[in-house]
């Protein structure tokens, strides 16, 4: 007696379909599991055996072979428990499952179907592979239902699933509440209205949000760098459906999606501590790499406070994702690619003690220590940051006074308008423009070009720095609603290049 049930295995965001075949043959009582199963899958044997027995079904007392095909793909995780049990039950009953149907789920010993990570990723992948029906743990049904054109059957326990398949008692498919239902999006926790003074930092934040530029805030402790950074998600437009799905996929892989409202419209904000390892930041782990902080902040903001305190190799590892918006990691279990298109906001003190340049407190660092500290920030990483601004401590009387600055809402309006202009013109944000397209789409008038060239000559700008200033100028013009980059836009962009100032 032979039966099969389809499922899938994940390698990062890649989904490969897996066919679970069960064959019951005469012979000594035995349960064989073949097909390149990792340890976590081999353990399924014990869970499946108990789950079948405790569901009041009969476990075949014959030679049972379960094959996971294709045999050359490595299978990991507990999501194959359910398809294994289903294929065994179907083999006993001599039935085949409905076509274009896949199963995912971990089994408890009592036959209950438990949550597994990555259901959204699996569902999206299976839909792409042409599947129309998916059986998932009841706890993950909302997540799977985010995928259009997929009938989701929630599974409470093995018994109910088998009854459904054998036509004894049907399970109602999960009715999607629809992604649009929770579209309102909660307001951001931090509003620019709480930021006192800091006009330069606010403007830099607006430019960063509008063009997708990376930003470095430099200033003494307590100047409000963290506060500014936390305001960034609130002035970014809400996620598009496509983006929200990408964000949710990463969270799904990590098992962090909230069950009831899996899709969030607010942009992610991640602030890893400076002790973070390269694996934690970029992604890593044994077997197949898990997504790191940079992928969790995909389409959102990655905030690195105390940039100089991060280990140098950790910062070096940021370079590839900063350029390409994705990261590829190879571990023993294979190579995976995760999306990592985030806006980097870094904050740093001007020196180890933090008070260099402060008008009131004096700095206690030796010149050598300051130079070493600055050197850690310089070089390739800094070269990839478009905007660098100094943040000064705000005078106490300003803090005590009523806030005078704008709130996040009007800034966000301008950011959305500027982004719309960029997308209509070039299909991507200014920060992602290649130099060739920059020349083509964002031509400079003679006067503007001369300013940029003079600066480049005076300050020894690299070609990369030259293009970065150019891109920022394009964003400044977009915020202005200007077709052409004017001289004042170039000048503003150069004003945000604190790194060109001789220390």
């Amino acid at each position: 007696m032979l039966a099969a049930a389809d499922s899938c295995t994940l390698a990062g965001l890649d989904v490969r379909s897996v066919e679970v075949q069960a064959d019951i043959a005469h012979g000594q009582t035995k349960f064989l599991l073949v097909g390149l199963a990792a340890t976590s899958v081999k353990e399924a044997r014990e869970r499946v055996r108990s789950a079948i027995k405790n569901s009041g079904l009969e476990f075949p007392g014959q030679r049972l072979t379960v094959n996971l095909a294709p045999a050359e793909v490595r299978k990991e995780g507990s999501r194959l428990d359910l398809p294994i049990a289903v294929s065994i039950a179907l083999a006993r009953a001599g039935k085949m499952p409905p076509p274009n149907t896949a199963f995912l789920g971990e089994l408890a010993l009592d036959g209950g179907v438990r949550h597994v990570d990555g259901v959204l990723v699996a569902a999206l992948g299976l839909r792409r592979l042409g599947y129309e029906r998916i059986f998932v743990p009841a706890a993950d049904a909302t997540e799977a239902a985010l995928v259009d054109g997929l009938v989701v059957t929630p599974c409470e326990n093995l018994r109910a699933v088998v009854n459904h398949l054998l036509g004894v008692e049907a399970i109602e498919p999960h009715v999607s509440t629809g992604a649009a239902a929770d579209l309102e999006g909660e307001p951001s926790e931090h509003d620019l209205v709480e930021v006192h003074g800091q006009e330069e930092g606010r403007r830099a934040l607006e430019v960063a949000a509008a063009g997708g530029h990376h930003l470095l805030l430099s200033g003494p402790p307590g100047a409000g760098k963290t506060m500014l950074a936390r305001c960034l998600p609130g002035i970014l437009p809400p996620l598009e459906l496509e983006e929200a799905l990408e964000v949710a996929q990463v969270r799904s892989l990590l098992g962090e999606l909230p069950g009831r409202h899996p899709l969030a419209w607010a942009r992610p904000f991640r602030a890893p501590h400076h002790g973070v390892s390269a694996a934690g930041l970029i992604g890593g782990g044994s077997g197949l790499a898990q997504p790191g902080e940079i992928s969790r902040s995909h389409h959102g903001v990655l905030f690195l406070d105390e940039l100089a305190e991060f280990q140098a190799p950790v910062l070096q590892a940021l370079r590839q994702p900063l350029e390409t918006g994705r990261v590829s990691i190879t571990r023993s279990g294979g190579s995976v690619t995760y999306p990592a298109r985030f806006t980097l906001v870094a904050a740093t003190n001007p020196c180890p003690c933090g008070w260099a340049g402060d008008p009131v407190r004096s700095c206690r660092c030796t010149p050598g220590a300051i130079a070493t500290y600055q050197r850690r920030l310089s070089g390739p990483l800094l070269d990839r940051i478009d905007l660098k601004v100094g943040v000064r401590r705000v005078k106490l009387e300003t803090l005590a006074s009523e806030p005078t600055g704008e709130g996040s809402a009007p800034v966000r309006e301008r950011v959305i308008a500027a982004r719309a202009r960029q997308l209509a013109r070039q299909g991507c944000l200014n920060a992602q423009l290649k130099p060739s397209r920059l020349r083509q789409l964002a031509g400079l008038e003679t006067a503007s070009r001369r300013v940029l060239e003079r600066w480049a000559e005076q300050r020894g700008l690299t070609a990369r720095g030259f293009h970065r200033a150019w891109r920022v100028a394009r964003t400044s013009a977009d915020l202005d609603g200007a077709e052409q980059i004017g001289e004042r836009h170039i000048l503003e962009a150069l004003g945000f290049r604190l790194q060109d100032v001789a220390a």
Partner: protein
Amino acid sequence: MIEPADLRTRGRWPPPEGPRVAIVGSRRPSPYGEAVAEQLAADLARAGVIVVSGLALGIDAAAHRGALVGGGVTVAVMGTGVDMVYPAAHGKLAEEIVAAGGALVSQFPDGTAPRRHNFPARNWTMAALCDAVVVVEAAEGSGALITAEAALELHKEVLAVPGSVFSPLSVGTHQLIRDGAGLVQNARDVLAALGATQEVLDDPLAPPRALGFGPSPGPDGILAHLSDVLPLSAAEIARKLQLPVAEVLGRLTSLELDGAVRRHHDGYVRALRSGPRRA
């Protein structure tokens, strides 16, 4: 007391005839102090003065650089052996000093590494080697004050450049002035103290120009609001002028390109000299 014969030297030693003035001060000066030291050294060098300093960071380096800009001869009195440069970042500066006909001198044998206790002795040597000491920015307890003290003991002129009363870097210099050191506003004050005014002053410094006087504010309005001592941020200037910060930032950059303002880590100051800063 170190005899000149005991000195190890590199470059031209003894230097050409002429008054020798040491310009010393903080290793971490304000933009103001650095600009004063550089300008003062340049003007003195043009007037034929040999500028002596210690090749340290900050005021020392600014003084050497200024003397080179002024086309003069400058002497670095070092706290290490003359075969090594401390800080290492000043290797190029040391070469330039020698190439311009100046000298590196040290009382310490070759191969002497930088040692904290060697520097006060070096300061004495420096005082002994020159006719006057000008202190530009020295916080309390600064090594520059040791040089001033040594100069007093050795009956050399001691002069000081006043600074902002808000700045801790002015404490030492203001104390010196209070104790009777000559107040230096420009190179002319130094030359007067040397008693050499008549011959050297004729040409290079006339008409007398005061330090601390940058380009005229002009119609722009921004320059008028900028200080040449205390850095102001673009945000502060925008607030004063009631202009959007984006515009102020652009105009400041434009002024910076023209060399009229200088940006530091913590804000903008009016540039004391025209022309962009040497990188």
